[in-house]
Each structure stands twice: as C-alpha cells, then as structure tokens.
C-alpha cells in the first residue's frame, strides 16, 4: 500500500437480524437496537444500529483491504445514527478508505463511513502493521 491509494469501497447491508445477531455476540442488549418503542421513547427515529456494529463493519473493510493485517489502532466518533428499517432489505452502510501514511512499518488508513450519503462515523481511522 502506498500513500494516496484509494481503497475499494465496501458496502454492507444492515438488517434488523444483523443487529440481533450482533447483540447476542457482543452482549450489548440495549433495547434501542431492537425495540422501536424504546428507541422512539428516547427521541430516536427508530431502532438504530449499535455504533460498535458500524465500527466493526469499518474494521471488516480494513481487514478486507489489508488481508487481515494486525490492527494496532482503531477509533471513531459516532456522529449520526444508522436507522435500520424493519424490513428484509435493511439499509446499506458504505466504507471508503484512503491510505494516509506508510511509515515505521505502520499503515494509517483514513476511513469514510456513510449511510444514504450521510457520514455516520466521525474521523474514523485505522492503523495496521504493514
């Protein structure tokens, strides 16, 4: 990988079933990720994806681009919710990436994670071993 490389955008469909599976796997059973009633009661438009699920999809894209390179840093802000409709199609999350630096055996990838054209993560970034 070289500085400036534009990595192939990875798109993942997120459905309610994916959130339920992630809840079970992660132990995060916050009802805002599976109950419209609770989600709307706290002012959300409906059930939203776990921020950590979206972050895991960003990490999945990084693993795809780097063939599973060791991750040494991963971080983001959660700036906009990914609202997941109660249907069979779900909603797409797209993960784009650009190589920002390659030095000291480390590759820094700046990510852009969007849902329907809106950035859902703030300044997402991964650093992997080259």
């Amino acid at each position, binding site marked *: 990988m070289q500085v400036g490389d534009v990595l192939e955008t990875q798109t993942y469909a997120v459905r309610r079933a*994916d959130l339920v*599976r*992630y809840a*079970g*796997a*992660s*132990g*995060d*059973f*916050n*009802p*805002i990720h599976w109950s419209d009633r*609770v989600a709307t*009661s*706290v*002012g959300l438009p409906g059930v939203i994806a*776990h*921020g*950590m*699920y979206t*972050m*895991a*999809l960003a*990490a*999945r894209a*990084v*693993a795809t681009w780097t063939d*599973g390179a*060791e*991750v*040494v*840093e*991963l*971080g*983001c*802000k*959660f700036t906009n919710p990914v609202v997941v409709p109660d249907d069979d199609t779900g909603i797409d999350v797209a993960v784009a990436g650009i190589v920002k630096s390659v030095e000291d055996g480390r590759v820094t990838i700046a990510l852009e994670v969007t849902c329907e054209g809106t950035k859902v993560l*703030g300044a997402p970034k*991964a650093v992997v071993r080259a």
Partner: protein
Amino acid sequence: MPVDQSLVGREFPPTQPYRVSAEKVREFSVATDPGRQAVPATFPIVMAFEAMNAFLADVGVELHRIVHGEQRFTYERPIAVGDELTATLAVASLRQIGGNDIIGTRSEIRDAGGELVCTTTATLVHRGGQEGSR
C-alpha cells in the same frame, strides 16, 4: 439526574476473568466479518462493555439512556483464543452539556499475567430529561 462529578478519576474493580474461546470468537466473527478466522479488531468491546455495564449499574444509569459518542482502541498485541482477559474501567472525564452527561471512560484490558493487551476509551452520552420529551 446528573451523574456525580466526584466520579472523575475513580477506578472500578476489574471484570471477572473472561476466557476467549474459539466458539465465542466464531460467533463474533459471524456477526461482524463472516468467514474471517482472526479475532476481529473490535472483539475487546465484549469485555469493555461488561465493565461499562457494571459501571452504569453502580452509578444508577439505565443503558437505554446511553448513546455511544466515541470509541478508540489501542492494541499492544492481537487477542488470541485461550487468553484470559479482564477489563478495568476508570472514569476519565465528566461534563454536562444541555442536560446530558458526557462521560469519558478508559478501560485497560489485561491478560492473566497482568500484561496490557488493549486500552480502549469511550465517550458515553447520558441523555437526561423526561422519557418521551425529546
């Protein structure tokens, strides 16, 4: 009810040792990155989340009032099947903005030998106010 400012700097007891099993890693991989063999990078959230839950219960905050603001991981080494890990959470910062508490936490994940495996920081937004008023 706002979270008590005196929490800043407080460290909570470590979580019970968590043994990383092949089955659990497979379950997490199927949920986040099907087909990949390695332990997913966000896997330490399993221990960090347990530490956060214990913290929220201790300070009397309900999980559904929490919105995740930020998460960062720094890894000393990859997690491997067979690791026995604990997470120790400390409250790093606390601010009140517009009726919400912005809670900064820092959790250290260590192996059975006490070696640091991963440090993860989280910003948790505690949404105050009446149910249904926002």
